[in-house]
């Protein structure tokens, strides 16, 4: 449970950071970079989430003998 809540906080932290970064870059008139920053944030989080999902599917497979 501890590790799991950690990753939730991590994801939310990166999300808030990208939101702030997006606002900051947009304010400075760098729309392109703002969107790139958002995209980078989403990609990084997606990697973590996919890791988690793979873990989940692996577990479900072993528990329900879905080979």
């Amino acid at each position, binding site marked *: *449970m501890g590790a799991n*809540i950690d990753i939730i906080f991590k994801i939310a932290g990166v999300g808030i950071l990208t939101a702030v970064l997006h606002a900051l870059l947009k304010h400075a008139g760098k729309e392109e970079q703002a969107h790139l920053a958002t995209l980078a944030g989403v990609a990084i989080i997606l990697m973590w*989430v996919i890791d988690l*999902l793979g873990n989940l599917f692996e577990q479900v*497979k072993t528990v329900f003998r879905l080979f």
Partner: protein
Amino acid sequence: MEITQIVGFALVAAVLVIILRQYKPEIALLVSIAAGVALFLVVLGKIGAVIEILQDLSRRANVNMVYLGAVLKIVGIAYIADFGAQVCRDAGEGALAAKIELAAKILILVLAIPIVMAVLEILMKILD
């Protein structure tokens, strides 16, 4: 108390999702997926124990292991499909969720065919 942990975890995740949804809906969705996966993983261990007991019982009752395996597979498919469908529905993709459910139903049907066949054969034997 595991339930307090789980509820607290879900509440924290919900608050984070709501905060993030105003600014970055796509990341909010990822947070909710991660939270769902985490909760699922916590409960999965317990289901494993239950399944062990079920297997033990079926072994003692001399039920064919093929049937129990099929049932377990069906339950697993149902769990995963339900999870995916709910995530899709959360993201506002109702059509995709419906497709996932349809695929799950078809896969379950395929897995259930041996059992259905067995039941039919028993019926035929009785009728003969």
